[in-house]
């Protein structure tokens, strides 16, 4: 496609300006993307270390490393940081910021200043939560009432922090939707858009519609604790299950806020390294919107054991199965794209393949859990823990790592060591499976989640899981070192190392400050790999 976009004027890479101030006041979407990337990565590492501590405690049946209360604090921190600070803003804010304008051929997002404002709101939320650590909450990341309304740990601060983060999420989503509507380059029609853009769009819709609901929920919880409001307190005529309804009305769509951007990443990586046009473009594009829509109708599958009516439970169970359809459509299309492709196993591709494999396990076990009868047995066991980690690590984090390795040369203009990248992928993949696969069995045998202690007979599987977490941790460590070392290497990245057709690869690495010297004219879709298309590209 459009080659005219290659720089002809003087080329000033966006990273040229140095100095702390130049970052604090930047409105450049690429720099804001980097700031998000650093922030979310830090939280990922912190929450990951907490996870290693938890797994260490679980080596033995007794609570010998930390007390049960401390353990409760640890899983609350781990869950809250991972969910609200890493995975929800995650790919959407970091790669979304970096890629959306580049991919659609725009100089920036629609509201650059608001974009910087959203980042500061994110930071404000993190500061509040860090303050909350003085008296850390022990409710779990779900903040369920009545416990969260009565525990004497500081629930108000951490929920307020999450509430503030919500604003950041909403404003970013709004910014991206407007950008995608209004700033596409000439010729960049909806059906030529890269699938990552479709994914970002669907994610933004979810952010806009679901986030305010968790906002009001957390606000009510704060009012419950500080003003004595009684919406969730049976003694005052309220209803604790109402909290769960509110919470999951956001948090089920939120799981798709977490995963859809990663699906977008996978749809970009696979065709490049299979050197084939993406199969079922429209099906993938519209299934993102389909998922977004259905995800608003299934929240109560988290509440099958909360005493909701049998009729409601049956309906929600059925609706939950529907989510699996658009999800499976994507998986089939990725497989069809791979079929008979000339596959190159770049580290980014390895992560993408890891995603397809692990996410399928995660999604299928989600269908188990959506089945009413099975879920009564499996609810709140390690089976759920395994399911959610297969979708969140096996899915989103794999997508995140894949994106890091894929767009690294473009983003930073440097290269990392590819062999080390492959080694760390292997450790992550193997470590992850050893950590979480045994948890399916633990769950089936009835091991409940969120306990520091457990019966003797679970010890061997529990210990296996802990060993796995060390391999996983080592893999992430090596990967981190490799990527950071790459930044200081002398090896300059070429403009388009994989021969991708997407617009962001048609500008120098790293991109110039205003992305394109001349706004490109787009004449074809992004996925014309293979025979004839590549010639006229």
């Amino acid at each position, binding site marked *: 496609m459009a080659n005219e976009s290659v720089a002809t004027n003087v080329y000033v890479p966006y990273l040229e300006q140095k100095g702390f101030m130049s970052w604090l*006041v930047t409105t450049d979407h690429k720099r804001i993307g980097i700031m998000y990337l650093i922030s979310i990565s830090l939280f990922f590492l912190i929450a990951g270390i907490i996870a290693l501590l938890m797994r260490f405690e679980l080596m033995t049946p007794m609570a010998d490393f930390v007390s049960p209360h401390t353990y409760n604090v640890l899983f609350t921190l781990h869950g809250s940081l991972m969910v609200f600070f890493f995975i929800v803003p995650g790919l959407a804010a970091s790669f979304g910021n970096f890629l959306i304008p580049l991919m659609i051929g725009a100089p920036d997002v629609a509201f650059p200043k608001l974009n910087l404002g959203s980042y500061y709101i994110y930071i404000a939320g993190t500061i509040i939560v860090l303050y909350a650590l003085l008296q850390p909450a022990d409710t779990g990341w779900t903040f369920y009432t009545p416990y969260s309304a009565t525990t004497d740990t500081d629930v108000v601060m951490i929920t307020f922090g999450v509430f503030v983060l919500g604003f950041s999420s909403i404003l970013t989503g*709004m*910014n991206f939707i407007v950008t995608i509507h209004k700033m596409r380059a000439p010729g960049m029609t909806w059906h030529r858009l890269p699938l990552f853009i479709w994914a970002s769009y669907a994610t933004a819709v979810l952010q*806009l519609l679901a986030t305010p609901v968790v906002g009001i929920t957390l606000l*009510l919880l704060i009012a419950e604790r500080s*003003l*004595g409001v009684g919406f969730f307190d049976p003694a005052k005529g309220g209803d604790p299950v109402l909290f769960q309804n509110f919470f999951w009305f956001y948090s089920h769509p939120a799981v798709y806020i977490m995963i859809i951007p990663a699906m977008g990443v996978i749809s970009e990586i696979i065709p490049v390294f299979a050197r084939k046009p993406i199969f079922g473009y429209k099906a993938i594009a519209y299934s993102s919107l389909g998922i977004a829509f259905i995800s608003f109708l299934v929240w109560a599958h988290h509440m099958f054991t909360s005493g909701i009516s049998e009729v409601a439970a049956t309906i929600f169970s059925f609706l939950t199965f529907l989510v699996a359809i658009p999800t499976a459509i994507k998986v089939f299309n990725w497989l069809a794209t791979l079929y008979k492709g000339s596959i190159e196993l770049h580290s980014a591709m390895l992560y993408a393949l890891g995603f397809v494999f692990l996410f399928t396990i995660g999604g299928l076990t989600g269908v188990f859990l959506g089945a009413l009868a099975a879920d009564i047995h499996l609810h709140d066991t390690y089976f759920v823990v395994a399911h959610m980690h297969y979708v969140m690590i096996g899915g989103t984090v794999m997508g995140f790592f894949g994106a890091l390795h894929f767009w690294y040369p473009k983003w930073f203009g440097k290269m990392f060591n590819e062999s080390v990248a492959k080694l760390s992928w292997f450790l992550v993949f193997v470590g992850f499976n050893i950590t979480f696969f045994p948890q399916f069995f633990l769950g089936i045998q009835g091991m409940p989640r969120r306990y520091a202690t457990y019966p003797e007979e679970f010890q061997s599987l529990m210990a296996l899981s802990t060993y796995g977490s060390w391999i996983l941790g080592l893999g992430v460590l090596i990967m981190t070192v490799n990527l950071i070392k790459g930044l200081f290497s002398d090896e300059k990245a070429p403009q388009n190392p994989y021969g991708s057709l997407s617009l962001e690869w048609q500008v120098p690495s790293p991109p110039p400050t*205003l992305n394109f010297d001349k706004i490109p004219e787009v004449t074809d879709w992004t996925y014309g790999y293979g025979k004839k298309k590549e010639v006229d590209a």
Partner: protein
Amino acid sequence: MEEANMEHDAHHDLHMTPEEEYSSSKLGMWLFLGTEIMLFGGLFAAYAIFRAKYPELFLESHQELNREMGAVNTGILIFSSLTMAIGVTAIQRGKQMLAGIMILVTIICGLGFGVVKYFEYGSKFSHHIYPDTNIFFSLYFMMTGLHMLHVFVGLIVLGVIMVMTFQKKFDEKYSTPVEMGGLYWHLVDLVWIYLFPLLYLVG
């Protein structure tokens, strides 16, 4: 470095024509209003659930509310929406003075609304009615409180816009912030129009 920065920012601001900026801002504002509706929607859902569960409590408790004050405030807000609309039309026609005055009237109405609300809350407290009195008053204080917060934000926004209008920053060619402020103010008004019957006119 500072200078380079300013230039860089200027570039970023200039990547849209005024028309593009207008249509983008408008879409963004409508999306934002959608999220506001979802935010209040949570409270409206809670209202529906609890009213269905405790009809007598709602009937009984709402008699404590001062209908006259509520009605006065409804009138004030509807009037302020009108003045705001006149202000927006005025600026679109380039009448800066009229627009500024209309925004000023809107702000005065908003302040008036706040004063009435202040006396209402005061009289509730003096009757020992608080957010934790019962579910109805929990709802009453949460809903009107969240709405009041929106009024405050609106007043600040309109205050800034008014000053800029008097400074002749807007005219018939560029009036986007005025229109966005207007849209927001209409939402604040709209939410109240629902709150008034739900809370004050139960019986």
